[in-house]
């Protein structure tokens, strides 16, 4: 675990450094408050700190206040270590944002025990962040395919359309639907259907650039949001995606299955709709046109193909 120690008094600094290294900490030592703030406010800075009160530039409480103000997301466990021992000082120190207060000269066992308390708090925070991130992932992704779920992909489309409007760019939305997918489920069972959906998701992801988005829009429907595209290439991109899905049979536990897809696409350039729903309505109509045209083909909204 990394720890920052800030103390302008070299003997005290050295003693702390040696004690903490012996206890297994990776120590960063600084001699003034400004350097302490810079270290602690780095995104990958230490999350545990021992701060002297009286230091040049910023004193210990000022460091606490500044770190609390600037470093929002992750907690930094701040311990003031000072020879100021009055009750009033302890109150001022803790009120400034310190998590703990130790009086010099320190006892090494007590110091280590207090730091263990800090580590427990940081570990608890790490666990909570991990759980929150897992929940966020579940809330935004489809459990079967691990693609973005409908709510998230639509939200991203709305965001991209709004950005496109500002920057005079072009976003292409591609809505794909697997042809006769119900037949796969009815003939081979839902587990095979799931295998197909997972493989289609993988193929879709490999057919787009890292900054494009792919989501599961419905049962066997997929929505892709392609950023910074040339509107004239909408059909070409849609065809590439269709080929990626249908180019070769999908190998399942019941054997290889030939899967095709119908695709509707729409480019935002020259047709900024009022709402994302309007945009989706248009791409849905293009998909319907592709279905009506015999499936396993692409149609562009507004284009006479």
């Amino acid at each position, binding site marked *: 675990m990394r720890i920052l120690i800030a103390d302008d008094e*070299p003997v005290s600094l050295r*003693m702390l450094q*040696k004690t903490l290294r012996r206890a297994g900490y990776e120590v960063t030592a600084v001699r003034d408050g400004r350097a302490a703030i810079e270290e602690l406010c780095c995104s990958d800075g230490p999350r545990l700190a021992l701060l002297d009160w*009286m230091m040049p530039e910023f004193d210990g409480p000022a460091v606490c206040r500044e770190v609390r103000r600037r470093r929002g997301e992750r907690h930094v466990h701040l311990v003031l270590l000072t020879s100021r021992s009055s009750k009033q000082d302890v109150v001022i120190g803790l009120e400034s944002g310190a998590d703990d207060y130790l009086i010099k*000269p320190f006892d*090494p066992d007590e110091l280590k025990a207090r730091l263990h308390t800090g580590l427990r708090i940081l570990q608890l925070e790490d666990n909570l962040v991990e759980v929150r991130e897992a929940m966020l992932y579940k809330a935004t992704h489809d459990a079967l395919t691990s693609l973005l779920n409908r709510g998230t992909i639509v939200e991203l489309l709305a965001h991209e359309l709004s950005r496109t409007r500002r920057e005079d760019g072009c976003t292409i939305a591609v809505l794909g639907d697997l042809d006769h997918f119900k037949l796969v489920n009815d003939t081979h069972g839902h587990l095979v259907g799931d295998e197909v959906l997972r493989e289609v998701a993988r193929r879709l992801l490999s057919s787009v650039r890292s900054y494009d988005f792919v989501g599961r829009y419905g049962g066997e429907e997929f929505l892709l949001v392609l950023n910074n595209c040339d509107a004239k290439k909408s059909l070409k991109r849609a065809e590439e995606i269709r080929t990626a899905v249908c180019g070769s049979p999908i190998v399942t536990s019941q054997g290889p299955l030939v899967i095709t897809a119908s695709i509707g696409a729409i480019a935002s350039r020259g047709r900024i709709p009022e709402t994302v729903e309007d945009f989706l309505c248009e791409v849905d109509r293009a998909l319907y046109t592709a279905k009506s045209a015999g499936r396993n083909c692409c149609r562009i909204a507004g284009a006479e193909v």
Partner: protein
Amino acid sequence: MRIEVVSEVSKVVPNGVLIARFVDLSDLLARVENDCELLIELFAMFKEELPARRAALHNAIQLGDLHLATAEAHTLKGMLANMSTKHAASLAATIETAARVGDMAAVNVMLAAFDTEIEAFSKAVNEFVAGH
């Protein structure tokens, strides 16, 4: 009892008898987790650091800057306490308190006592460091 402690610690800290008159060596040894090399290194650093800090305190008092004198006395108190030099640390603490309340007369009286103690202590530190 005190002599017993001194002689006991002196076995662990070579050349530690003189300095043990000023420093609670058993307390300091415990705080450096019985690392004699570190203890010697700390005294060498302390020897280098002390004159400048003393001069800063004297300067602040001569200028009549009691705010600065408070800070300098506080630093000296911390340094001395850190080295388990308890009597000298308590003298520095009285200077800090007197300076904080603006009692210049008390500051000067305590400074004289502090200087006497520190002079003797510095000699012990110099001897100790020279012996290692």
